[in-house]
C-alpha cells in the first residue's frame, strides 16, 4: 500500500494506481475529457492536472490520469494554480469548439467566463482521442487513427478513404464526448441497396416457390383460446 496526502487528507491506495484513480476512489472530483475507465490513460486533454509536491522539490502540475501514486507525495486538486491551469486549458479547447454545448458546459464548470481566442473554423472535435483508442482497445480493429500534426491534426481513416477494417459497431460515435464524430467519414456513403434477391434466395433456396416459413396462425389462435378459457 502507498500512503499519500490528497487535499490535506491522508489516503492509502494499492500499488500501480494513478492519482486520478486514487482521487475517484476517494470521491474527489476531477474534471476529465480524454479519460475513460475502459481505456488506457492518454494524458491528452490536461484538464485533470493536479498540483504535486514532493519533499525537497518545488511543487508542479502533473496530469493525474497518467501520474502514478508515489509514497509520501502531497497532492492538491483545487489549489489556485490548478484551477487557473484548468480554466486556461478549457478556454484553449473552447477556442476551436465555442458552440459545442458539451464543451460550453465544461467551460462553465471550470469558470471560463469568456472565450478570448476563437479559431476561424470551428470544429467540435477536441482531439481527445477517445474514438481512436476505443476502436483499438474495445473493438480491437483500429479502423481510425489521428492523422497529421499541429493545427491540421484530425481523426480519420487511413488515407482518408472508407475503411475496410470498420465493422460498423459505432463505438466511436458513442464514446465521442462532444458529438463531433461523423460516422459516414469512416464507413463511407456507399450504402448497399438491400439485397432483396439474396434474401429471397435465402428464403426459397431449397423449397423453390414453396413457402416453408412456420405458421403462426394456429399458434396464435390456440394461445388466445387458452387465454380466454383462463379468464
Amino acid at each position, binding site marked *: 500500500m502507498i500512503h499519500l496526502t490528497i487535499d490535506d487528507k491522508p489516503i492509502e*491506495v*494499492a500499488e*500501480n*494506481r494513478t492519482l486520478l*484513480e486514487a482521487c*475517484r*476512489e476517494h*470521491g474527489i*472530483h476531477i474534471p476529465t475529457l480524454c479519460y*475513460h*475507465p*475502459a481505456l488506457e490513460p492518454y494524458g491528452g486533454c490536461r484538464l485533470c492536472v493536479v498540483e504535486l509536491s514532493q519533499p525537497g522539490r518545488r511543487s508542479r502540475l502533473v496530469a493525474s490520469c497518467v501520474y502514478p501514486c508515489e509514497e509520501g507525495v502531497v497532492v492538491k486538486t483545487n489549489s489556485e494554480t490548478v484551477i487557473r491551469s484548468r480554466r486556461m486549458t478549457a478556454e484553449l479547447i473552447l477556442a476551436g469548439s465555442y458552440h459545442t454545448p458539451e464543451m460550453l458546459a465544461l467551460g462553465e464548470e471550470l469558470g471560463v467566463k469568456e472565450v478570448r481566442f476563437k479559431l476561424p473554423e470551428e470544429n467540435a472535435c477536441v482531439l481527445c482521442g477517445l474514438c481512436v483508442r*476505443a476502436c483499438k482497445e*474495445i473493438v480491437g480493429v483500429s479502423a481510425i487513427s489521428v492523422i497529421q500534426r499541429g493545427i491540421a491534426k484530425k481523426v480519420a481513416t487511413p488515407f482518408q478513404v*472508407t475503411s*475496410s477494417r*470498420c*465493422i*460498423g*459497431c*459505432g*463505438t466511436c*460515435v*458513442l*464514446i465521442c464526448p462532444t*458529438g463531433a464524430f461523423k*460516422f459516414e467519414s469512416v*464507413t*463511407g456513403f*456507399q*450504402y*448497399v*441497396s*438491400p*439485397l*432483396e*434477391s*439474396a*434474401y429471397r*434466395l*435465402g*428464403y*426459397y*433456396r*431449397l*423449397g423453390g416457390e414453396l413457402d*416453408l*416459413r*412456420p405458421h*403462426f*396462425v394456429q*399458434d*396464435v*389462435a390456440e*394461445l*388466445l383460446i387458452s*387465454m380466454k378459457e383462463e379468464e
Partner: protein
Amino acid sequence: MKKEIIMGEQTAEFVPRIGVVICDCGDKISGVLDTEALRKKVADQFEVVYSVRDTYPCSKDGQERIQKAIVEQHLDRLLIAGCSPRLVEKLFRQAVQPAGLDPSYLNVINIREHVAYVNAGDPAAVSKANGLIEMGTARLATTSLAPSHTGRVVKSALVIGSGLSALTVALALADGGIRVTLVEQTGALGGSVPDLQVRTLELIFEKSQTVLKHPMIDTLFNAYVSEVSGHPGDYEVRIQHGDQTTTYAIGAIIVDNGAQHKKLGASRWFDRNKVKTQAEFEAELEEATEPGKMLELNDIVMIFCAEETQLERCSRVCCNIGIRQAIRTKQLNPDANVTVLFRDLYLGEVGGAHEVEFMEARKMGVTFFRYRRDRPPVIGDKTVDVLDTLTGEPVRVPFERVVLSMPLIPYDNAKTLAALLGLPQDDAGFLAEPRMRLRPGRYADPGIYVLGSAQQPADTTEALFQAYLTSSRTARFLSQETISVQTPVASIDPTLCTGCGNCPQVCPTLAIHLEKRDGVLSLSEVDDLRCIGCGNCVVVCPVKAISLPGWDNIEIPAQISAALQRRQNGGVKVIALACEWSAYAAADMAGTRRISYPSNVSILRMNCSARFDPYHILWAFLNGAEGVFLGACPPGECHYGTGNLYARERVEKLKKELSAHGINPRRLRLEFMTLENGEKFAQAVTDFVTDIQSEIYRK
C-alpha cells in the same frame, strides 16, 4: 407455468447465486436515481445473494472489489448495472475471468444512458431502473454457458476459374508455400478475357505457362466443384474431374468464374448485318488486318452503354475496347468516318494509358458525341439520330456499321456457385459482396473470396489489384494455426429436431445442413465455426429445438416478463426490442445527448433483428404489454446480412394475425434506424407511446 407450455422447455432445478453491482458513476447515476433503494429492491430477489453499490466499479480498485466478491460470495452470475455495455462490457469480461467466472455469466445493463440521462426528474425513473435490473437478473437466472469453439486451418486453397485474377492469385499463394488446386471448366487456361486486349492475353499466356509448371499448383481441366461441406479453414470439396470424383481438403476457396459480353440477339428493329457487338467487330477487324484484306467500311458509329443497365452499372471494359477499335479502324482506313456516341467515358487505368488512347483517337479525327440519358441514340435504316448535349441540337449520322458495347454479364454457373457456397447474387447475377459498406470484398464466410469480374465487372488493372489483395488476405487467413469463434453460436437439440428443413434455408452463412438419421429421417446440425449467432434459425424452428446462449427462448421471455411486472402509475407498458447494432446504440446516443423519451419504455438488448421472434412479441402482449417497439438496422445495413428484412416480413405477417385476433396491430411497430440516430429513436418511441395512449383512450 404458461411460459413452459409455450416454450416446451423446463428451467433447471439449479438455483444460481447472483451478485448485483449497482454503479453510482460518481454522482452521475446516484445524483438522479436513489441507487440505495435500487439495491434494497434487488436484494429482495430470491436468487440475488449479494448486492452492493459502488462509486466506480470500472476502476482498478472497483474491479478488484468485484473479483473479491465473486470469490468470497461464491457467485456464479454477476450483474453490473451501470453505463453502456458497448463500452465497458469488454473491460468487465476481462475483470471477472481471473476470479473464475465465465464471461457468459456476466451481464452489464445500462441504467445511465437509458435511465439517468433521459429520465432525470421523472418520478418513474427509479421504477424503470428497477425494471431494467430485474430484466438483467432474469436473464442471468436463465442463461446458459456459451463456450468458444476452435477449428483447424488446412494450408491449401482452391481456385475456381482460370482468368487473369485467378492465375495471379494461384501464383501468389503457391509462391507463398500454399498448395493450390485450380479448377477449370474448359480444357485450357485463360478464361474469357472480356477486355479483348493483346496485352492482357500476353500476360495471361505468361502466367498460365508458369502455373502449369509450378510444383505447388494442381491444375484440373474439364472439372467442376460438385459439393462443398465443412467450415472456413477446413472445407471438404468434391471435384468432378472427367469421369472421377475426388475429395480435397481445402482451407480457403477463391472464386473467379469471370464474366462474358452479353450476346446480341436478332431484332426486327434493325438490320443485324449492319449492327454488330464489339466482340463481333473485333473479329472483323482481325480479319481486315490480315495481309491482302482491308476494311471496306467508311461510316462507322459506335454506341457506348448500349443497354440501359450499363448506365447503372459500368461494364468497365467497353469504353476502352471501343476507343481502341476506333483507333484501329482509323489506322486501317484513314478515310473512314468514325463516330462515337457515349453517355460517359470510363478511362480509369493507373498510369493513364487509356487517357492517351482517347487523346490519340481525337487527334486521328474520331468524332465524339455525348448523348443524354433520357434521349438515347436511335438506330434507323441508314442513319443514327442522336441529340448532342454540347450544342443541344439533333444530329443525324449515316452509318454502314453500328458497333454496340454490350454489358458484361455473369456466366450461367454463377448461380450454381452461389447456391453451393452460399454467396449472394445481386440483381444482375454477379456474386456481389453482402456488406460492401462494412467489409468490402468480404463475404459472410471468412474462407471464401470472390474476385475479378465474377464480383462485378473489372478491367485488367482492377482485376490485378483485387487478385493481389485477395491473395494477401487468403495468405493471412491460412497462416492462422486455428480459428476460433467467441460469440455465442446456435446449437440444435437432436432429440427435439424433426428435420423439417426450415433452418438451413434462413441461415445467412449456410452453417446449418441436414444430416441423415437412421437412414430415414434427417436432422439439422450447426457448424460452430460458420455460425455468426444471428438467431434466425431459432425463430423459424417450429419445435424450438435450437438454442442460442444469451438470446435463448427462455431468457428473452423471462426478461420480457420481468420488464412487464413493474407497476406504473397510469402509464402504458411498452417493451422495446432493440438490435444492439442499431436501436440499442441509438438509445445510448439519445442518452448521451440527453434527449428524453417516456420512462415507461423498457429496452431489451437483442443481438439482431433476425431474432425478433413472433412468439416473444406475443408473449409480451399476453403478459400485459400495451405496445411492443422493435428497432432494427436500415435495410442493407444489417450486420448479419438480411436479418432486418426477415424481421420486417415477420412483423407484417404477425400484424395480420394480431388484428384477426383482436389485438390492435398498431400496438406493434418496427422502425429502422442507424446507431447514430439518437433523435430518431427518442422521437419514434415517444410517438409510439403517444399513439398507444390514444388507442387505449379510444377503447
